Structures are given as C-alpha cells and as structure tokens.
C-alpha cells in the first residue's frame, strides 16, 4: 500500500470557542474520486482549508502528497489543484490574463491546448473579463483552470453549488477525465448526492466537525440500512440490536436505522423479540445520508396522526 495522497492526524480547528473540525483522522488513497459530504456547517470548508495550509490548525496536522500542509513547497503546490467555493477568481482580469497568471504557478505542466479547447468548448471569449461572466461561465473558467495543469490531487470545495444541470455535468465529466490519467486523485465536497453517487468510488462523511465515515461508496451503501419490524401486540421495551443508530416507534411497529448490522443478525433479533414480520427497506444514498447524519432520537418534522 502506497502512502495516502491526503492524510490528517487529529486535525482540529476552533474559531474562538466554536469547534469546527474535531480530531479529524483521515487518509485518502491515490487513484480515487472521493465525495466529501456533510451537512451545512459540518466543517467541510474548514477541513479543506486546513488541508491546503490556508488555515492554521488549533491542533493536529495534515499532509498532502507526503508534505506537511503547513509547509507546502512550491514544487508540491504545483501538483495540487484547488477550486474554491463560489469560484472566486480575480474579477478585473480577462480569461486570457487569468490563464497567464495561473500558468505562471504551474510552469511546464500547464496544458495550453487543453485550456484553449475547454474555453472554446464553453464558447467563452478569452478577452472577456471575469466580472462580466455569469456564475456558470465563471465556474467553467474555474474548471478549465483547475484541469489545465493536470493536477495529481484535485480538491474542489462544493464546485457545483448553484450551477445548472449541464454545467454540473461538465464538472463531473472533468473529474472522470482527470481520474483516467495515471495516479490522479480527486476530493470534492457536494450536497448533491446523486452527483457523488455517480462519480465517486469513495465517500467521506463529516458531521459537526467529526469524521463519521471514510470508506468505499459501495461499503457505505451496504452499511446503512432501514428495517421495519411489526409486532402483534406491542414493540419490545429494549432495542438491543447491534449497530443501532435511530429507533422510531409506533404502537406496533419499530423503524430502525442500523449501521453495519449483518442481515443474519437482523433475522435473529427479529426472531428473538417475536416480531411478526420484518423487512429491510432499500435506501438510496440521499436517505442514507440524512439518516446517518441525523441527531440522536431524531423525529420527523411533521407527524400525521393515523386516520
């Protein structure tokens, strides 16, 4: 196993008394597209900025491509691409000027033709100033700038926020295009779980600054389950099933959210508690995410009484 391209150890950040990132121990292997997900305010942007050395951690450390984030050398930085949330680019520059500026940081690796082809594909005039572009066009320029240096590690902070379906798809295509090259790795945060499911083979979930999952997407898909059990008289007082995350009761039914509980164990438990029947409900990634990051004893916002 080669060294992870991205690794954090006990990475922690306080803003005053507010804990934004809480002892994050993360390791991302080379060659994957990793979807970085968490609710608003979970600490994704802070974690990304810490990894890139743009913020100083309160405690802990992180390494990118084997180099400490606090001391990234220009040589290492050249191998890393970073797309900021909201695609903040220098507004007074034209696309051509911005390319020239950006290219100066990447020297030999910059692929002029690739950049020109992308800008042409997006049908953007190179002389136009960034401030005269729409949000979508600015995002397209930002994507071209991120891919042109052929980065070994590409980190994107919610790159598709507020973009239309077509431009979002272009970002996904860009990630797939990059990952096909030898040894490339992408980490991107997003709230659009359909996008994450589509292109990622790995998922990292953080919640309130705490790492909750870092595994293959397939593993996550298999791990989070919903089970509904029906009982003849009443539900059991104690729910002692392995991997229990949430338990919701109605008079004769139990709805359980379980993590990494084997189907055999569910069957045994249903049998032991005398459930009349049970079934394991198929969940999509979005449902899994919502349940997985819901606070303990989570109840539905609205409840309808049975008619």
């Amino acid at each position, binding site marked *: 196993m080669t060294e992870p391209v991205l690794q954090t150890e006990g990475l922690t950040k306080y803003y005053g008394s507010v804990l934004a990132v809480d002892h994050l121990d993360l390791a991302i292997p080379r060659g994957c597209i990793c979807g970085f997900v968490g609710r608003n305010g979970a600490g994704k942007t802070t974690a990304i900025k810490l990894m890139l050395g743009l913020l100083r951690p309160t405690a802990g450390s992180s390494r990118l491509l084997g180099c400490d984030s606090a001391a990234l050398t220009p040589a290492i930085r050249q191998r890393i691409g970073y797309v900021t949330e909201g695609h903040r680019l220098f507004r007074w520059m034209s696309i051509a000027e911005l390319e020239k500026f950006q290219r100066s940081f990447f020297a030999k690796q910059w692929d002029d033709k690739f950049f020109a082809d992308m800008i042409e594909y997006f049908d953007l005039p190179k002389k136009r100033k960034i401030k005269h572009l729409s949000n979508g066009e600015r995002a397209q320029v930002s994507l071209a700038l991120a891919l042109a240096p052929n980065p070994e590690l590409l980190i994107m902070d919610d790159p598709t926020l507020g973009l239309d379906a077509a431009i979002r*798809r272009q970002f*996904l295509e860009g990630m*797939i*295009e990059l990952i096909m090259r030898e040894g490339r790795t992408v980490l991107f945060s997003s709230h659009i779980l359909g996008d994450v499911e*589509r*292109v990622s083979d790995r998922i990292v979930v953080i919640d309130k600054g705490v790492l909750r999952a870092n595994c293959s997407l397939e593993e996550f898909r298999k791990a989070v389950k919903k089970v509904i059990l029906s009982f003849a008289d009443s539900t059991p007082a104690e729910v002692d099933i392995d991997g229990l995350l949430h338990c919701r009761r109605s008079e004769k039914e139990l709805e359980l959210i379980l993590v990494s509980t084997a189907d055999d164990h569910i069957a045994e438990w249903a049998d032991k508690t005398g459930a009349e029947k049970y079934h394991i409900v*198929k969940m*999509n990634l979005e449902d899994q995410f919502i349940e997985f990051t819901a606070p303990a004893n989570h109840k539905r916002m609205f409840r309808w009484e049975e008619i």
Partner: protein
Amino acid sequence: MALWIQILPGSGKPIYAQVAEQISEAIAKGELASGDKLPAVRKLAAELVINPNTVARAYSRLEQAGLVTTKTGSGTYVSDPKLRRSDAADINILTERMDTLITRGLNLGLESEDIIAMFKARIDKFVSKPKAGRGKND
C-alpha cells in the same frame, strides 16, 4: 452502445448493477450478440460520466454470470450462449423467482392461463425483436 444505457443516481440500485442489468438485458434480447465487443471500461465510463471502477465492477459481474469473457489485452466480449454456464443452482434460482411471480399473480386473482399469457407476451418482447439493436431514441 453507451447511448442507450441509462444511469439513475438516487434510485437505490447501485450504478454498477444498473449498467450490468441493462447490458444483460441487451444480451438476452439479442441486441448484443455472441462475440460482440463491449466498449472499453474507460470509454464507457467517460460516455456515461461514471467512475471507471463502477464500469469495471459491472463487467466483472457480467463475467461472473458467464455472459461475457475478458480476453487479456483485447477487451470484453459477449460469450457464446452454448458455452454459458447454466448449472442446476442457476436453474433453481430461476425457478424460485418464477414461483414468487406466480404466487403474486394467483393472489391477484389471475387465472393460470392469464399468467402464462403474460409470460408469453413478455418473452416475445425479448426474442422477436429484430437483431439490429436499439436506436438512440429507443
């Protein structure tokens, strides 16, 4: 061929399974014939805008089912139906699935003739279609 494969994120069905199922359906319908070459993993990944590992997983699932064979350095081909594995265990699984469907049909109040007619109509959809393959707009 990639154009007729539909990816539905959020459907609950893993994307590799969506790809594998649509290809096996095309093989069953004869739209992909024995000896036909499947697109390279990377090509299909780029066209469908999905992770290449997902395509590789779909292909290996098809290979496990005996529907395709991978020749090293050359590609993945639809295998010869005569050489496809169809052992007793596979037939058992098929019988069980048919039993489930028949049970549901009878519970819905259908007569056995109705169920047979429905099976017949569905099978016709698979075997009587011209072999030319689907168009882009299908």
